[in-house]
């Protein structure tokens, strides 16, 4: 290399380096692109879910495809017959675009395979959740730092494992854990709470601890994954006045609502209590008439159509609604035959018709003995047959499957119907 050429080389370097540095600075300073999934607040204060630059209505189902004769411990993720392939096709035909998984356990490769298969084959996205240790024994101690750290580790592991899966839609933290703050389900306490004599103050102390913990988890998730919203799972709207103080960082709430044909004042009430968008993450109706003691698919279809109508009336852009609903995930895709008598394996092969609980909102069969009208094993919009097809229980869509499919194709809302 001659001195001249060397000088020319230096000259090139001196001319290029500042440009490169400038480019690097520019790139570093440039705002990052929009997250893949985010919630947009519109000018009219309505909320809209945006997925890959497009508005997205969550038309979902809660998914837990436990076959007849198995219980909740069954590892369906590793089922060689891949039930989600058959289900995914049926879901796509119906118009479902989302499934909700309460919690993912076990082999992460198997979980990823399910998420990918559903997304790549059918365009169905997955909501991943965590119970936040709610069903562990002994009952959860959200006031205990060790317990909190254990749950936090599990949640962050889940997020790290699946955040880069293109089919993931969002995270849901908890389900109806808020009831434990009231002491009605899985009650917990701490020394400090026990010292407080006023039960209302005790409730407030538990709520502060729980919702602050969820907020802390949300912030941690946001640090490692800015592409997916984080939802606070909640039973009804109970306790959300505390969430308004202590869980401001959650992106939305995901509520379990069983109010029969109407959600009542749910959407407007939420706006006043805790102004966040809502996913109705668990709702629906069973299809067994506990009074007449026979399957009644019309009853289930009636409730589900009415519920979806109200969800649509409260989506962004509907001026007569609250504009804070992002959609819903029906409880549930298939029946679960193990639920009534969980500790008795013989009963997992029997479609039990004994009701477990009472809910007057589902009034068709409220005159059943003891007013127990809710049949936990009959909530599927798709029935399971004992006959096998492609190695799994044959799927038999119920009337609700078709009624909701038609509603989604052409949603006719009450305000529009009334104008006719």
């Amino acid at each position, binding site marked *: 290399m001659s001195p001249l050429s060397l000088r020319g080389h230096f000259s090139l370097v001196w001319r290029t380096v500042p440009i490169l540095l400038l480019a690097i600075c520019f790139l570093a300073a440039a705002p990052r692109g929009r997250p893949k999934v985010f919630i947009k607040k519109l000018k009219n204060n309505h909320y809209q879910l945006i997925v890959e630059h497009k508005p997205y209505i969550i038309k979902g189902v809660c998914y837990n495809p436990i076959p007849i004769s198995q219980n909740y411990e069954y590892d369906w993720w590793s089922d060689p017959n891949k039930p989600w392939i058959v289900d995914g096709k049926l879901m796509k035909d119906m118009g479902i675009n989302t499934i909700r998984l309460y919690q993912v356990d076990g082999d992460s490769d198997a979980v990823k395979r399910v998420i990918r298969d559903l997304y790549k084959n059918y365009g169905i996205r997955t909501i991943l959740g965590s119970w936040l240790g709610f069903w562990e024994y002994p009952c959860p101690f959200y006031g205990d730092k060790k317990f909190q750290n254990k749950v936090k580790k599990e949640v962050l592991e889940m997020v790290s494992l699946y955040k880069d899966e293109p089919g993931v839609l969002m995270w849901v933290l908890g389900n109806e854990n808020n009831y434990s703050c009231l002491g009605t389900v899985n009650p917990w306490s701490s020394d400090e709470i026990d010292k407080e*004599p*006023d*039960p*209302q103050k005790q*409730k407030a102390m538990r709520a502060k601890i729980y919702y602050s913990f969820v907020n802390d988890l949300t912030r941690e998730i946001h640090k490692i994954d800015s592409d997916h919203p984080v939802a606070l799972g909640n039973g009804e709207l109970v306790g959300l006045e505390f969430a308004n103080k202590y869980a401001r960082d959650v992106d939305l709430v995901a509520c379990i609502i069983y*109010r*029969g*044909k*109407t959600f*009542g*004042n749910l959407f*407007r*009430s939420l706006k*006043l*209590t805790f102004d966040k968008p809502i996913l109705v993450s668990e709702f629906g109706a069973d299809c067994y008439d506990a009074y007449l003691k026979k399957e009644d698919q019309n009853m289930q279809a009636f409730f589900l159509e009415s519920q979806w109508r109200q969800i649509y009336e409260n989506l962004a852009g509907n001026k007569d609604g609250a504009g804070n609903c992002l959609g819903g995930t029906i409880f549930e895709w298939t029946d679960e035959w193990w639920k009534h008598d969980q500790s008795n394996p013989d009963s997992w092969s029997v479609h039990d018709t004994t009701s477990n609980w009472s*809910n*007057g*909102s589902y*009034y068709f069969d*409220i005159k059943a003995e003891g007013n127990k009208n809710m049949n936990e094993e009959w909530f599927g919009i798709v029935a399971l047959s004992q006959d096998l097809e492609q190695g799994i229980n044959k799927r038999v869509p119920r009337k609700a499957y078709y009624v909701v499919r038609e509603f989604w194709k052409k949603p006719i809302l009450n305000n529009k119907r009334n104008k006719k």
Partner: protein
Amino acid sequence: MKKWLVVLLALSFSMPALGLAEDKPKEFVVYADKNAKDNHFIPSGWMGDYGDIKMDDQAADNPHTGTTSIKFVYSAKKLQNQGWAGVYWQNPANNWGNKKGGFDLTGMTKLTFWAKGAKGGEVILKIMVGGIKGTYPDSSAIEIGPIELTDTWKQYTVNLAGKDLTYINGGFGWTTTVDLNPEGATFYIDDIKFEADPSLKPETKKQETMPFYVYSDRSSTKNHFIPSGWMGDYGDIKYEGATKEDPYLGDSCIKITYNGKKAQGAGWAGIFWQNPANNWGNVDAGFDLSKTTSFTFWAKGAKGGERIEEFKVGGIMGEFSDSDSAVIGPVILNKEWTKYTIDLKGKDMSYVIGGFCWSTNVDNNPEGATFYLDELKYE
């Protein structure tokens, strides 16, 4: 020729139709006079403390029209230990919906009757049209009340416009309670009839003005909702709606004794105040309380320290659900009267059938609990 025939035929068909239209009855009498030919329905359905009722259906002392009216004497002695009594006019007599009967009263738009008290101040809790259930249920259930009678004849109207009157077996009825008439009541009813008044429009639910009481005093006509929704261990509850033990305001308050004995094995108990009585969301009724911003009440424990898990308004879910609900609790009661407030700002109280509710349990009251409530009202 054929055209003339068609016109003639058309006329011949239309004339009877026109005639029928003109013949549509304008009224349908329940009671005019003792032996009036066009009386319908029989006052056979005696309810509650039926032993407390005496009826004279040919009272000649100052009828509104004609020669007789119906005189009722309600003694309020609680002979059947119910605390209330009433009479339904039925067709046929004693038909509680177990046999076919009734009338198709389509076209009628109101029921009118005249009534007066012997002294004035007598209170009728409810006047009913329809509402009998059973195998052959009435096609509608309409109620008005409470009504405070005067000592002179006065006409009252039940609006039936827009109601399905295709099958009415319970043509007319009244009920009242000991609480409303602690000394009993003597009153007269006359000229009960259904009428076709085409100008009458269906009644729309009006927004109630505030304050709107659930309970003021035992005999107050301001009271609304009935403490009929006993829940859980209902056998553990003793309800006294007219105790004079140190009321907060007025001459009486509510005393509730919960003994915690788990009579039905539930371990908890409570009472819902409903409209109408026993409405768990199966009857389209209730009140429009849209103007309310809070519900207030006064409460105290017999000893202090009694724990009530929930005080609630709204929240009944059924075919006709309450439009919203709000709750406070758990509350530990003081021995002294204390005011409690349920905040209703932002709540949709446009449709309320569950006016008020309390519930508690044996876990937190192993020895039971006796407590008092007064001045329950929406503001």
